């Protein structure tokens, strides 16, 4: 039985991988990768890693792929028209998929995970030696115990890394010229080096932009156009 499930999951993983690489539409590639991640979660379950399998489904296929889906819908690439929007087949398929996901999560929760909690059964400890009273292999209890005792420093560094990534994403996606200081009296160190209206990314890539009236009033800059100077260099060639 385990061999049958292994071959099904391995085929699903390979088909999802091939689909991710070969499909032309990036939307379909994301869907193929979701199928690949779910097959991989099944392989993790076969390897007695039930917490990692649940984390894979919830975090990877659930959150990261949804993020990808949003960005693919925004940015695109080739045409992203998937099919008829309110088809009954897709609705029925979505409900069936939700039921299957619920059954899988229930099995993961009510499986060997709960059996090992609070019993004195034999488990495989953190050093590989089986002894009574340890948490079962791959259960959330053992993962939690390891994360908080032996791997505390990597755990804290990983949370710090998540904070850095979140701040970086906000910095990359923000717009320049947001909420300014209404009185205009605060001075940042960058103001000593360059004028307040310059230094945008658009100027850096060679764009030119008109000075807004807000900047004329606030900074006293004359009306005109800010140019990065790269356009003259390209016109010379």
């Amino acid at each position, binding site marked *: 039985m*385990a*061999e049958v499930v*292994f071959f099904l999951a*391995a085929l699903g*993983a*390979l088909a999802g*991988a*091939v689909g*991710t*690489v070969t499909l032309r539409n*990036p939307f379909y*590639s*994301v869907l193929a*990768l979701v199928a*690949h991640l779910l097959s*991989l979660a099944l*392989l*993790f379950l*076969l*390897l007695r*890693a039930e*917490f*990692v399998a649940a*984390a894979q489904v919830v*975090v*990877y296929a659930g*959150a*990261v792929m949804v*993020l*990808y889906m949003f*960005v693919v819908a*925004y*940015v*695109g*690439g080739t045409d992203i028209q998937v099919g008829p929007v309110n088809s009954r087949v897709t609705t029925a398929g979505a409900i069936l998929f939700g039921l299957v996901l619920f059954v899988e999560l229930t099995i993961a929760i009510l499986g060997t995970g709960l059996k090992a909690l609070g019993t004195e059964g034999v488990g495989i400890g*953190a050093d*590989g030696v*089986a002894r009574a009273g340890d948490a079962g*292999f*791959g259960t959330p209890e*053992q*993962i939690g115990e*390891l*994360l908080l005792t032996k791997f505390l420093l*990597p755990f804290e560094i*990983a949370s710090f*890394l*998540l904070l*850095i*990534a*979140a701040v*970086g*994403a906000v910095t*990359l*996606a923000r717009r320049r010229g947001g909420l300014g200081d209404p009185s205009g009296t605060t001075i940042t160190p960058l103001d000593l080096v360059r004028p307040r209206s310059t230094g945008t*990314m*658009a100027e*850096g*890539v*060679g764009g030119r932009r008109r000075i807004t009236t807000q900047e004329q009033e606030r900074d006293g800059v004359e009306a005109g156009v800010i140019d990065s100077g790269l356009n003259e260099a390209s016109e010379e060639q």
Partner: protein
Amino acid sequence: MAIEWYLVVSALVFSIGAGGVMTRRNPLVILLCLELMLNSANLALIAFSRMYGNADGQIFAIVVMVVAACEVTIGLGVIVAMYRRRLPIDVDELRELQG
């Protein structure tokens, strides 16, 4: 199920992902193929963790998932910023990270 089967699947998925990274031009799909490679490494880690009965491999796999999520966040932020600047979403056109 012998452990070699899982390692073979991991190696296959890794090479498919590597081929995809080198072949595709859309940076979104390149990031997806990168995810394939990370997942194959996760599978190998979990397989070895099961072989030795040591749960350290599973902790490693969880940390790899965290790092992959962070990298996806920043990569997608860069792609969205590129799109906002009206630059072509094509890695053959964009060879320099400037501005």
